[in-house]
């Protein structure tokens, strides 16, 4: 791109930022008060933590589709991953890392369980718990205990898609209540916990998969990284 064009882009970005800032600065209060509506309906949502209530009940449909987005990213990655570029077998890692993994991973699984359970009452929930599980899987991989994934087995595929299928099945079954994902207040807590448990496992596997599908042989030396940038 030539210099005038680059300058035009920078100018446009600055003008946009200026206009947005101006518009935001003299903004009256919003007409609709959703926090009040959330607070009002929290008692029938099945959970006590408002963010979890929005995520899995009031706007649970967004979350359902979002899990599909994650699955899709993994599908796309599996489609383009080159089998020969993925390390098929875990490599030998240094003993210190192995020891660290064997201590940390059980603790991380415990932490994930806690986060899952805590999500109903306070910050936490399936996403954070799944992220911790994924981190445990990545650590196991780095410690040489878990191979990278070139083509997942049927069991692994079931784990990846299982949480989504549970969510979808619950959403569809609740059509009998009159609408997609319409939890009966008496069972909302139990159903949300069921969905979250499935999601925690599947999210852990999918998020780990985003890393493990890409993971390459750790052998390649990173020579020359420091000398980059003299363009």
């Amino acid at each position: 791109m030539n210099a005038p064009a680059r300058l035009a882009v920078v100018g446009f970005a600055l003008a946009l930022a200026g206009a947005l800032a101006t518009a935001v600065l003299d903004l009256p209060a919003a007409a609709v008060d959703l926090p009040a509506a959330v607070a009002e309906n929290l008692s029938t949502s099945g959970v006590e933590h408002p963010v979890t209530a929005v995520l899995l009940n009031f706007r649970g449909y967004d979350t359902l589709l979002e899990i599909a987005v994650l699955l899709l990213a993994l599908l796309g990655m599996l489609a383009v991953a080159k089998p020969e570029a993925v390390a098929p077998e875990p490599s030998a890692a240094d003993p210190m890392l192995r020891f660290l993994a064997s201590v940390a991973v059980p603790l991380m699984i415990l932490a994930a369980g806690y986060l899952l359970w805590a999500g109903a009452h306070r910050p936490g929930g399936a996403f954070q718990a799944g992220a911790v599980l994924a981190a445990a899987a990545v650590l196991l991989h780095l410690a040489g205990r878990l191979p990278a994934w070139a083509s997942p087995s049927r069991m692994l595929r079931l784990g990846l898609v299982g949480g989504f299928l549970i969510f979808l099945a619950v959403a569809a079954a609740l059509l009998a209540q009159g609408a997609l994902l319409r939890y009966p207040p008496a069972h909302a807590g139990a159903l949300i916990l069921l969905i979250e448990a499935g999601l925690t496992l599947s999210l852990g596997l999918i998020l780990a998969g985003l890393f493990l599908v890409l993971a390459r042989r750790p052998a390649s030396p990173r020579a020359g990284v420091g000398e980059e940038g003299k363009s």
Partner: protein
Amino acid sequence: MSLAFDALLALALLWSAWRSLATPDLTRAVVMFIVFGLLMALAWARLDAPDIALAEAAIGAGLTGALLLDALGAFGERRGGDRP
């Protein structure tokens, strides 16, 4: 006082974001981006959004950072930098 802290944090966010795009070294850019993610987690905590803070630290900074660092190995070494 607390608003002064917020203002400092905002400046740090902007600075790390700028460096992650403008620094010529790709590795340093990724490191700056991870720093940016951690600062974002702090900002979420300041905004009374602990759920996002947890997710940002674990997913935004952690997982994305790991992915980027791993990718650096794949194509970082074969190329020079980029003009900001």
